[in-house]
């Protein structure tokens, strides 16, 4: 296999990740975020802090780029030489894209981050040795490293504040990497309940914390292989294929009149999050 051949066919070599040749069945968790509904209000980010025991690092550490927001709102403004941002700013909720061919997984020296059968990119804290290769290799910059032992750091969880910690989520110690999990604790609880009842998780039965909070309902989340799910329908109507690095609709002459796209698709990580473009009125 020549280097060129390897590079050209890298996608087929490294993706279709589900273990033991089993495809995503019965679950493939995925998301769709409507940027035209998102207002950039940050409710999702705070909900994530509440659900996932994220430490508040404080001014000093934030300055050093050590903030731990698994869910962050990115703000963009394209100048184009204009005096004012007269079509507003661009907000983008950014969290782990749970890539199907995740660049972070292939570089972990200890297999602490790997793919689950329901299409998540898992991060196992007790396996992580803190090499931070995954973070270096993540094109979305959504992995966060515990540079400090936050549980014992002053004013992170002082007395009483620690009682808010979610018992379903591990409180991470120093030296491990962490990232958005699609609220795996909620997913697993729902999956186990469904399994006990001999069925699959129904649409709407499980929500991620960010989706649940979003005042504009811009985030939809669900099982991509369930034809009843909203996420399935959205991906289907937007003609975004999970296992393509160039969507057919974009190859057509004149482009597509559909809004669905995935960020940095051309790098072939096959993200599980589809965004819907923000729309701006052409009449004003």
């Amino acid at each position, binding site marked *: 296999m020549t280097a060129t051949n390897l590079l050209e066919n890298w996608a087929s070599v490294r993706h279709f990740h589900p273990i033991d040749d089993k495809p995503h069945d019965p679950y493939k968790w995925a998301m769709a975020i409507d940027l*035209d509904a998102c*207002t*950039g*209000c*940050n*409710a999702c980010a*705070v*909900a994530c*802090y509440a*659900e996932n025991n994220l430490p*508040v690092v*404080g001014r000093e550490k*934030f300055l050093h780029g050590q*903030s731990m*927001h698994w869910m*962050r709102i*990115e*703000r*963009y*403004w394209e*100048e184009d030489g*204009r*005096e*004012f941002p007269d*079509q*507003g*700013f661009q*907000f983008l909720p950014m969290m782990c894209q749970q890539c199907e061919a995740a660049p972070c997984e292939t570089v972990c020296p200890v297999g602490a981050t790997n793919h689950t059968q329901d299409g998540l990119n898992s991060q196992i804290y*007790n396996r992580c040795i803190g090499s931070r290769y995954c973070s270096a290799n993540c094109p979305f910059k959504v992995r966060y490293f515990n540079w400090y032992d936050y*549980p*014992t750091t002053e*004013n992170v969880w002082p007395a*009483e504040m620690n*009682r*808010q*910690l979610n*018992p379903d989520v*591990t*409180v991470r*110690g120093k030296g*491990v990497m962490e990232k958005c999990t699609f609220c795996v604790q909620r997913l697993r609880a729902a999956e186990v309940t469904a399994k006990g009842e001999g069925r699959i998780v129904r649409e709407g039965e499980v929500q991620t914390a960010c989706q*649940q*909070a*979003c*005042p*504009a*309902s811009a985030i939809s989340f669900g099982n991509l292989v369930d034809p009843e799910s*909203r996420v399935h329908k959205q991906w289907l*109507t937007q003609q975004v294929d999970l296992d393509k690095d160039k969507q057919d609709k974009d190859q057509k002459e004149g*482009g597509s*009149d559909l*809004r669905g796209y995935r*960020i940095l698709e051309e790098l072939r990580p096959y993200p599980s999050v589809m965004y819907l473009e*923000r*729309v*701006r*009125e*052409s*009449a*004003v």
Partner: protein
Amino acid sequence: MIDSGSEKHLAGHPFDRRDFLKVLGWSGTAVALSGCGNTSIEDGKETVVSYVEAKDYVIPGVAVYFNSTCAQCDAGCSISGKVREGRVLKLEGNPDSAINKGKMCGVGQAGVQHHYNPDRVREPLLRNGDKGETITWEKAYALIAEKLAAVKGEEIAFLTGGVSGHQKVLLGNYLDSLGTKNHFVYEAVSPGVVRAANLKAYGVEMPRYRIDKAKVVLSFGADFLGAWVSPVHFSQQYAQFRRGVDGQRGVLIQAESKMTLTGANADRWLAVRPGTEGILALGIINALGTATGDVAELVKGYDKARVSRDTGVEPSNIDKIAALLKLRSPSLVLAGSAAEGYAHGSQNAAAINLLNQVLGNVGKTIEAPVSVPFPQMSPAKGNTAALKTLNDDLAAGKYKVLFNVATNPVFTAPASYKFRDNMARAGFKVAFAHYLDETALQADLVLPLDSAMEDWGTSVPEYLTEGAQINIQQPLMERLHPNTRGLGDIVLALIKQRRADEYKGFDDYYGYLRGAMLQNKGALGGGGSDDDNFWNDTLSRGIVKLAGPSASLNASMATAGLKLPAPVEIDEHYPFQLIPSVTSSLRDGRHTNQPWLQESPDPLTTIVWDSWVEMHPKKATEMGIVEGDIVEVTSKTGSVKAQVYLFPGIYPDAVSIPIGRGHDAMGRYAKGYGVNPFQIMDSVFESATGELAMHETRVNITKTGQRVIVVKDEGPAGGMQMGRKIAARVSTDQVDLSKEV
């Protein structure tokens, strides 16, 4: 009649509430804290969670949800508190509420950090020189009785924020028993001017806005997605508005001098010269060309050239907006804080409301409000004029005893009020407080309040959406600190000092509340059920929905008295207009000590943990200022120093400093971070209502020569996409929304 001591019922399950809400087996969290990799897993080191008595549905490891009401702001969102092993872990929205429909904002989520805050006041404190001495509640009550006995009724004043529900009734009765009418309802950030203008234009203070029904929304600085009136509700309407009415996506146009979160989401954002919002509204009426009679007469002079010159808005934009408004109906025009914050704020708001009327929106996207059928419970709305009156009275030495219920005027009054000094003129000052904030520190007696997760209560939001509702607040867990008390309990104890006979039947505020609710069972929709069932049902729902009387709108197109001043000329000593901005996460600064909100980046600038001065890049370049320069912002009243952030979404002759930071007390997460723009705010008042005109301060900017790195979340690319398709945008003519699901 009332037996609050006996077994209480909830969600149809009788159980002893006290036992359930008790915090159990500390081991769970204590261990969770020791984190990963270094925990003891030695057998027999930890204690297992166990109950003495528990009902069948109480299962360790399984969360139970209790419905209550968010108390972080006055919007009245209903919440569902997740409770496990006696600890409240997370607040989620209650889907049954018409206000928030299961959704929550960041401020609401942070309610748990208010409850668990390490800086809460835990004991009643009595001033002894510079220190607070812990005293018992009995002693505190006795002291209040003693002080009150020595003064006349009219020498007592009460300062509160917006109150409603049974707290308002009880508080009213207490004031009555003291023989005082001096109740000042104060909110540092309130739509006071807009309320007055609405009353004139529509006959009601706050109609129901239907953003979801509008095809075009033209907002004059109303930050309805961020911090205006009922943001979570409006955000839901906004999502509906974007999805479209009859397949047509709604268009948002925002006109303001400093971009708000809502402005950042606009299809067209217009930088307006500060204070000229009314002129722009009249200019649009003129451009519409549909007005007749008085209105036509009024707008005659507002031709495009003049309006454009006055407001700084391009004539072509005025044309486009007028054309769009004509084409797509119904529309909705909103007047927000940017329009009302001037001495002529009422005039601005009146001009904007007039535009609504000309467009025929009243009755279509502006609907009549509903109210609860119990007027005594409907909210006492706070405004800033109340504080002005109180301050003047205090300065005149009218009051000997001042009660302050959890407001913080020492922080939110303009420095020119000298509120701290005037407050000292009241001989005895009692503060009901959650934190030792700037105002509580000036008090002689500090009474620690329960958090909203420990207290009983009812409330009626000012802005009701689909129907009338009374919100129920109930404890989600046992008191964290044994010596805090609920506001209701404190007022009940105090009123018993005056009217013992009348209130002796009530052991506590819970008993009072239950009794009062049961008394009106019929009117509250529980006519058929017995007391316990009704009460259980009410608590499990967390909301009482009512068919409230609906007011009627009277759309009177009154132009009399509507006269807008010409834009202010630039003052060479103070060339900039100061716009103190209200951010969606910090609002008036009462929640600054909640670290999630401090670390939640400001959506527009992405700055955390600090204040900043927003300047337009063009102006900054002229002055040789770059990002991070510390500048001194000087007004006639005073000066503050803060870092500069170059921000294109601001009128070049304006600068903006956010409200909420700059505390010098309150707690570890608030104290010492940022600056407080109230300290340099001039005392200028709105001419018709007497509200504080917050945008009327003019300032000068000077470089200090110092420079810092701005702590922000913007990332190394500085908010640029560098040609990548990251946050993509498409215009309506390139997309077919009708295919979407």
